[in-house]
């Protein structure tokens, strides 16, 4: 029997959030945390959490498991359970809608703010724009982001200033376009980032790197943005 303690809050019936205890019979199997949630939902139909692909590519089920953010669908119990106990909480720092479901509005707003799309006003050729494999390699480790918000919601700088600091996820995507040989808006992109908050509120804590379920490194990308800003302005 696995002892699960889970954050519950239904705005219609609860005046305050509370932790609820569940006993889940995993039959000793090393299943994923998402499977455990499914079993709990069969016990309590009202339990709310997001899920979609169940294979770690859609980014729906980011949550805090025994104190660490991650994706429930690719986190096996053996990786998180301590002393036979699993504690599940919503991603920290964002408003809770219900149970494990958080309002991702601010997170998406910061993503949109960095203009996450290729900008190139040169008329396109009849075929694709060419890009050397070396230039394309520069996008590896950047474009794979699944917008699960595990990184940004583990970042103290994002907790304190979610409205001003772009956060690791947004900055990783910002650098994805800065690094793209096909993008022509480098100057404009950098101009949007040079204030004291957007990029520079990063204090190099590196929680983002520690939790990214895709093994990406936003801190490195932020360092690269700083280098580009410096090169551009000195």
């Amino acid at each position, binding site marked *: 029997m696995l002892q699960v303690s889970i954050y519950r809050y239904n*705005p219609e019936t609860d005046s305050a959030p509370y932790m609820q205890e569940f006993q889940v019979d995993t039959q000793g199997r090393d299943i994923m945390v998402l499977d455990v949630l499914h079993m709990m939902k069969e016990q309590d*139909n009202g339990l709310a959490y997001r899920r979609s*692909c169940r294979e770690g*590519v*859609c980014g729906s089920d980011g949550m805090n498991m025994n104190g660490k953010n991650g994706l429930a669908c*690719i986190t096996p119990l053996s990786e998180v359970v301590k002393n036979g106990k699993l504690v599940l909480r919503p991603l920290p720092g964002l408003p809770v*809608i*219900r149970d494990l479901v958080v309002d991702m509005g601010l997170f998406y707003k910061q993503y949109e703010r960095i203009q996450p799309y290729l900008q190139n006003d040169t008329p396109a050729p009849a075929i694709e724009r060419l890009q050397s494999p070396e230039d394309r390699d520069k996008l*590896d480790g950047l474009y794979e982001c699944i917008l699960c918000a595990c990184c940004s919601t583990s970042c103290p700088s994002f907790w304190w200033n979610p409205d001003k600091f772009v956060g690791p996820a947004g900055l990783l995507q910002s650098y994805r376009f800065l690094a793209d040989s096909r993008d022509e808006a480098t100057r404009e992109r950098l101009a949007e980032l040079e204030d004291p908050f957007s990029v520079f509120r990063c204090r190099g804590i590196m929680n983002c790197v520690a939790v990214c379920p895709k093994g990406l490194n936003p801190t490195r990308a932020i360092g690269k943005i700083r280098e580009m800003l410096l090169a551009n302005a000195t």
Partner: protein
Amino acid sequence: MSNLRSLSFDAIIIGGGGAGLRAALELAKSGKKTAVLSKVFPTRSHTVSAQGGITCAIASADPNDDWRWHMYDTVKGGDYIADQDAAEYMCSEGPKAVFELEHMGLPFSRFDNGRIYQRPFGGQSKDFGAGGQAARTCAAADRTGHALLHTLYQNNLKNNTTFLNEWYAVDLVKNANGDVVGCIAMDIETGEVVHVKSKATVLATGGAGRIYASTTNALINTGDGIGMALRAGFPMQDMEMWQFHPTGIYGAGTLVTEGCRGEGGYLINKDGERFMERYAPNAKDLAGRDVVARSMVMEILEGRGCGENGDHVFLKLDHLGEEVLGKRLPGIVELSKTFAHVDPAKEPIPVVPTCHYMMGGIPTNVHGQAIMQDADGNDQIINGLFACGEAACVSVHGANRLGGNSLLDLVVFGRAAGMFIEGALNEGIEYLDASESDVESAMKRMTRWNESEGGETVPELKRELQGIMQNSFGVFREEENMQKGVKQLAELRERIAKAHLPDKSNAFNTARVEALELDNLMEVAEATAIAALERKESRGAHSRYDYPDRDDVNWLKHSLYFPAEKKLGKRDVNFAPKTVDTFEPKVRTY
């Protein structure tokens, strides 16, 4: 019911996957009042899981590549019930659509000359089958779907598309003339139910793999659009045609791309034999998916399966080396470590054919206009209703889809639907408003669940449905077993009609969404079952022990399932492409 708040749009697109976003982009660029309504944030849609690539004759790997060869492969792959005008449209328009994606920023992998990387995929040939294996699948490593979906979402942001994210479409609203004039939808976060009025309603709701117990599909793939259309009384085409992907990870069901075999991987049985050499001497592991899946099941049934129970086979990749795996198949390495506890650089991955794709769906023409049949069996356009992507059956995939053709289908026909709707809106569309009773009838099942007081619960009914489909309508099918399945489904439908939703709260009530999804799974399952039972031949993905041969005399046809009568009719396949000669049906070998 007139107390429902209403929203009005020129076009509402239900579904935020590749097809929906591509259609939306076209309409947003035209300045039409468009909204995408999606039950998940768009980048969580199942397109994100597509791995291997998008097949298209862009003449990068081979400068002499020709879209006609691609069209030939597609028609042959579909076992000759793909509509040839549609396949022609997809394959010839494809390069334009793919280049557009690249211009939007999709991070395709590259060849040394800077052009888009293309890899070999199953069923691909040069020179109409005479020139050997082609490499025609454009890829962004093994994350092409992810790259494509994010690129489309990003470009919709750029063009200020309106998004109704985490909204669930409940049912279509029809006016007194039977035109589709919008839908009833629920804002999942607040539980508010809204009447969405629209001159064009696009169903881009994707597949329904969750009717099977074992599937590569996301948990959200519950055939919502198919369910809505069936409840509105519209027919479905070729619903018996379900693709079982050869390489789903044993036990977990997660997909391992055909690109693995494209890059040189192959399947082995328990004796270590590369058994596909026996079943498809030329194409071997890159034969059509239906062929490979059947061969795997034959190996397992004949006792050459792997593992303790001999119920799977192995996909061998270790000979490709760590570098190729890391560069071309990084996502697969990750997935097999997570879900099979296997490092493909060292050991083979246990795999088994797993439900993957619905070739059937809402019949449409190449403009995405949904079609039904009049009393004389002639095609008739359904006013106001459009479909694209997996939910639609244009039909380009016929009885079996080729790998990499689904992503092409999404962008080509999403784009085509968007362009057509733009034109139609410019010309002016006016339909009769829905009356109060029209809206009320679209609210019926929502009301039913909300007023339910006791009975069976959703999870157990869903499990039962998936079990029936898995057991009676899998890779191989047979009359008696299917009859049993159809009967079980009819009983299940009665029980689902009386099932209970215990949680009636409003804020982010996922239980209510799952209950509404169960209705849709039921619709899809029954359409599949009856179509499978009635198509008395073997063609493409539909293989019957009792009718092992293709029957071109009686069944060189689309099947058309009519929900009101629960009867199967037929519809002619198009054999009249505009610019090339018809590909006449031939015996299909690889």
